[in-house]
C-alpha cells in the first residue's frame, strides 16, 4: 500500500511538474500573443506555425547564454534564491485537484486528481507561496547590487502585505464550504459557484493575487523604468529563466486556486465537457484577464500600492469575512 502510494505520487508529481513547465512555456507565448492582439500586432509568428515553437527557441537561447554574475555576490544564496522560487511555485500545485469528484480507476487502482488531498488544503498554498518570498528576497540580498536590493525590499514588503488580503479573502469560502480541503470546497459548489454569493471576495482575491505574483499593474519589484529589473537584475541565462518560471507558474497557481475556490473547479454548467477541460478553460480565462490587465493598466506608485493593500483590501476582506460569517450563522439559525 505504501509502495503503491509512493509510486503513484511520484508519477503524479512528474506529470504535474512536466505540465506546469509546459504551461509556463506556453503561457509566455500566450501572453505575448494576447498582448500583441490587444496592441494590433501579430505577435511572435516566425518560429513554427503561429509562433508555436517560440517557447522552445527562447528556452534554447537561455540555455546557451553565458551566465554572468556579480563579483561581490554571496555565492551560496545567489544560487539558492532562484531554486527556492521555483520549488515554492511548483510545490504549491500539489494540492490542486484538476478534476473530480471521484477518483479515476486506472488498472485497478483508485487515483485521485491531485497529488495530495490534505486537510489543511488552502493553508498549504498560502504557506508555500510565502516561502517564495525568500527566493526573491535572497536574490536581492545576495546580488550585491542596489537595484536588486531595492527590488527585493519592495517585493517582500508587497508580497507580505498582500498575503494578508489574499488569505482573508479566502476565509468566506471556508465558512461556506466548511472545510479547507480543496476537494470539499469544489464539491460544495455543485449547485452554485462561490463567485455568486462571494463576488466581492473573488475580486479581492484576484487583486491580491495579481499583487502577490508581482504582475502589472503591481509589478513594482521589477519596475523596469526605475529599478532596471528589480531583484533579478544580476541574474542571466537559465538562472534568470528560473525566476521567470516561478513568476509564471505562480500566475497559473493563483488562477487555479481562484478556479477551484470561486469558479467551481471542474464543475461545468451543462456537463458538456469532462472535468479537466472545464478546469483548464477557467484557468486560461483567468490568465487572459491577467494579460489583459497588464495590457491595460499603468504601474501603481509604491505608496499607493501599500495604501491599497493595507487601507482598502485588508479592511474590505475582513468586512467580507465578518458579513459572511454573520449571514451564514443567521441562515443556519433559521434553518
Amino acid at each position, binding site marked *: 500500500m505504501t509502495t503503491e502510494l509512493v509510486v503513484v505520487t511520484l508519477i503524479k508529481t512528474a506529470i504535474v511538474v512536466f505540465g506546469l513547465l509546459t504551461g509556463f512555456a506556453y503561457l509566455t507565448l500566450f501572453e505575448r500573443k494576447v498582448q500583441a492582439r*490587444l496592441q494590433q500586432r501579430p505577435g511572435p509568428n516566425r518560429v513554427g506555425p503561429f509562433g508555436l515553437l517560440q517557447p522552445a527557441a527562447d528556452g534554447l537561447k537561455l540555455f546557451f547564454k553565458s551566465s554572468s554574475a556579480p563579483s561581490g555576490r554571496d555565492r551560496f544564496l545567489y544560487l539558492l534564491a532562484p531554486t527556492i522560487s521555483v520549488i515554492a511555485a511548483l510545490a504549491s500545485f500539489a494540492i490542486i485537484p484538476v478534476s473530480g469528484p471521484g477518483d479515476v480507476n486506472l488498472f485497478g487502482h483508485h487515483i485521485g486528481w491531485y497529488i495530495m488531498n490534505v486537510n489543511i488544503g488552502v493553508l498549504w498554498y498560502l504557506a508555500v507561496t510565502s516561502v517564495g518570498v525568500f527566493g526573491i528576497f535572497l536574490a536581492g540580498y545576495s546580488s550585491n547590487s542596489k537595484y536588486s536590493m531595492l527590488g527585493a525590499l519592495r517585493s517582500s514588503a508587497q508580497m507580505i502585505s498582500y498575503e494578508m488580503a489574499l488569505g482573508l479573502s479566502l476565509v468566506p469560502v471556508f465558512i461556506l464550504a466548511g472545510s479547507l480541503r480543496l476537494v470539499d470546497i469544489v464539491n460544495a459548489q455543485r449547485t452554485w459557484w462561490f463567485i455568486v454569493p462571494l463576488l466581492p471576495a473573488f475580486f479581492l482575491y484576484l487583486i491580491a493575487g495579481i499583487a502577490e505574483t508581482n504582475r502589472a499593474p503591481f509589478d513594482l519589484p521589477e519596475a523596469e523604468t526605475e529599478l532596471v529589473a528589480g531583484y533579478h537584475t544580476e541574474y542571466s541565462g537559465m538562472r534568470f529563466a528560473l525566476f521567470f518560471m516561478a513568476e509564471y507558474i505562480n500566475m497559473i497557481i493563483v488562477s487555479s486556486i481562484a478556479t477551484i475556490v470561486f469558479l467551481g473547479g471542474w464543475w461545468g454548467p451543462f456537463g458538456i465537457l469532462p472535468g479537466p477541460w472545464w478546469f483548464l478553460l477557467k484557468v486560461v480565462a483567468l490568465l487572459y484577464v491577467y494579460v489583459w490587465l497588464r495590457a*491595460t493598466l499603468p504601474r501603481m506608485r509604491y505608496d499607493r500600492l501599500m495604501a491599497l493593500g493595507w487601507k482598502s483590501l485588508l479592511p474590505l476582506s475582513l468586512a467580507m469575512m465578518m458579513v459572511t460569517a454573520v449571514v451564514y450563522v443567521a441562515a443556519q439559525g433559521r434553518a
Partner: protein
Amino acid sequence: MALREALMGPLYIVRALYTTFKHNTQPIVTIEYPEKQKAVPPRARGKHILHRYADGLEKCVGCELCAIACPVGCIVVEAAENTPEHRVSPGERYAKRYEINLLRCIYCGMCEEACPYDAITMGPRYDLADDHPDKFIAVKEDMLEPLSASVNDTAVPSGAPSAQPVARKW
C-alpha cells in the same frame, strides 16, 4: 472625494479594460516585412540605378560629373573610349568602371541632379543590409538597368548588394 474615487475607480478600470479589448476587433497594422512590403514613394531615394536607352546602350558617358557633385565622394568613375567594335554608350566615352560605396553614400540625390544624361537616378531599394563592408561597394553591374529580360537577365539589379569582392578599399 475619497469615497467618490473609491466608488468610481472600478468603473474607470472597467472602462479602460473595455478600451483595450476593443482593439481585438481592429485590424492588425503590422506589415509582415520581408514577404509584404510597403510601396515606396515614386521619388524615394534608395539604391542608385544606371539607365539604358531603349536600344540597350548605356546612358552614362563617363563624364564623372556625378563623382564631382557627390558631397561625400562615394562615387568612382573610370571612363574608356567607345570603339566601333565595342560600343557601350552612344557618346564618345563610356564608364568602364562605375562604383558607389553605399555605406558612405548619404542618398542626397546630387549625382542624379548633376548627370547631364539622366544616366543615374535614385532607385526604390532601401533594404540594403549585408554582413561585410566590402559587400556594400556597388559596382556597375549591380546598378545597371537590365537589358530587356529576353536578351540578358544576368545584370538584374535586385537581391542583396553585390557579393563580389572589390580590391579597392574606400
